[in-house]
């Protein structure tokens, strides 16, 4: 019998399991991928200190630690439904049904697709697929390609492709429309990129940061943005070109692009074609919360967190008894934060299972503080307003689930 079933063997699930097992709880982790580590497996970047963040190494350490402590880890297992019966969670999986009083959902994030005419041709993939093929499966995705979508994730993965010796000729924007929304508006893209200046070491962006946050200067910068683009580690970032169609007979042969103004409107007569053999579409990330939804957890749309997130407290509990969440399912952030959040969730479960000693509250508080400090030092911020998103959820939690009988607050 398990005390805890953790769904997702990424950084959040692994660290959550480690916290639980440390206090004597019996824990099983299930993950549908064939290897443990979740999205850590694709991550490879250099920090400003010069140190490398090597996701494969980090995941190996967490995995070994969890195994040594006695966590049962099952890879290649998909969870397709959750139900609560007699105080027990029933977990329906591709290898049968399991039960536990406590569940930790650490299912991570998924990518927003941006459809582009021709996007079903072989050779077109999401930027995340390019990352997994390159860094996990070690398969060369093509000889020369293009990335559609300029955001933190596409820059981080562009760098990884370059490290693997794969040529990316250009980064362009998607066409402005109902699917791409702000990702097709140069001004909005510029605003979000200013927070990723360290990943895009190009003069304008670096020079930008504080300076370019000024509206007027930003508009000027974009209006006079060089036609040939600004180089990001050697790859031109074309903020004033949008992809209108991916062309090819049986596979990708090229991408038709058009010049756009700073609001993303196409300028007629400026079309041209880039020859490529692969295309990566980078639409950004959203929390993958399908299991929280089928379990019956309420949701809130918080754009700063990446989309719809299950209601949860700072201690990672949901309104459903025994159901906890951690990592990107609660909002899009980097791997280090997922690890720190997993610890909170694990300690919270220990507390609810009445396993911890008197110091558990204290440790929980420390774990919460730790997330705040890791967040302050985070280099990769998927959303610059992440703190605002987090406080929106905390306020919502306080107002809905914390009984706080202040007379002034009563409504009639």
């Amino acid at each position, binding site marked *: 019998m398990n005390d805890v079933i953790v769904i997702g063997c990424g950084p959040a699930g692994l660290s959550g399991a480690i916290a639980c097992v440390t206090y004597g709880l019996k824990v099983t982790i299930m993950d549908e991928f064939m290897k443990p580590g979740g999205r850590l497996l694709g991550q490879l970047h250099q920090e400003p200190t010069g140190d490398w963040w090597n996701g494969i190494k980090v995941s190996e350490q967490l995995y070994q630690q969890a195994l040594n402590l006695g966590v049962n880890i099952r890879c290649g297992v998909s969870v397709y*439904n959750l139900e609560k019966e007699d105080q027990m969670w029933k977990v*329906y999986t591709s*290898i049968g049904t399991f039960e536990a009083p406590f569940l930790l959902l650490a299912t991570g994030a998924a990518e927003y697709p941006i459809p582009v*005419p021709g*996007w079903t041709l072989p050779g077109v993939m999401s930027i995340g697929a390019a990352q997994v093929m390159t860094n996990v499966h070690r398969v060369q995705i093509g000889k020369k390609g293009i990335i559609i979508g300029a955001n933190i994730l596409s820059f981080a993965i562009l760098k990884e492709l370059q490290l693997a010796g794969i040529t990316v000729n250009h980064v362009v924007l998607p066409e402005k429309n109902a699917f791409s929304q702000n990702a097709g508006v140069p001004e909005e893209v510029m605003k979000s990129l200013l927070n990723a200046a360290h990943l895009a070491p190009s003069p304008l962006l670096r020079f930008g940061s504080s300076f370019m946050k000024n509206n007027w200067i930003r508009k000027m910068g974009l209006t006079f943005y060089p036609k040939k683009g600004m180089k990001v580690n050697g790859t031109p970032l074309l903020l004033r070109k949008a992809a209108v169609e991916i062309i090819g007979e049986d596979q990708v042969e090229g991408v038709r692009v058009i010049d756009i103004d700073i609001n993303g409107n196409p300028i007629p007569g400026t079309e041209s074609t880039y020859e490529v053999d692969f295309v990566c579409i980078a639409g950004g990330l959203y929390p993958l919360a399908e299991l929280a939804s089928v379990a019956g957890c309420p949701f809130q749309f918080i754009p700063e967190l990446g989309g719809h997130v299950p209601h949860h407290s700072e201690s990672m509990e949901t309104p459903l008894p025994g159901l906890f969440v951690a990592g990107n399912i609660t909002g899009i952030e980097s791997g280090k934060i997922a690890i720190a959040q997993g610890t909170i969730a694990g300690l919270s479960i220990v507390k609810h299972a009445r396993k911890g000693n008197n110091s558990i509250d204290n440790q929980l508080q420390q774990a919460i503080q730790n997330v705040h400090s890791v967040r302050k030092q985070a280099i990769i911020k998927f959303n610059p307003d992440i703190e605002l998103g987090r406080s929106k959820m905390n306020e919502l939690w306080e107002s809905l689930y914390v009984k706080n009988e202040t007379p002034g607050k009563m409504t009639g």
Partner: protein
Amino acid sequence: MANSENMIICRCEEVTYGQLRTTVDKHKCTARELKLRTRAGMGFCGGRTCRPTLDRVLDSFIPNFSPSEIPLKYQPPIRPVSFGRIGEIHD
């Protein structure tokens, strides 16, 4: 959008943007009805690829956004599963 009419939105069921748009024009339907009529999001992958796009397309046709609700409801099974598996007990 140039060439968008033939652009596939739901890959599993091969539903195009144009089909979604004409169905809405013709039936003035809700998001759920549109899904049932066209089968967009109802294929093998269970909407894993097209769901967010579908949400955005639907919202652009029929603005109906509520922050506390997920536009298209998730239904179990959220992953493809064989009939043989359903109902077995392991532990």
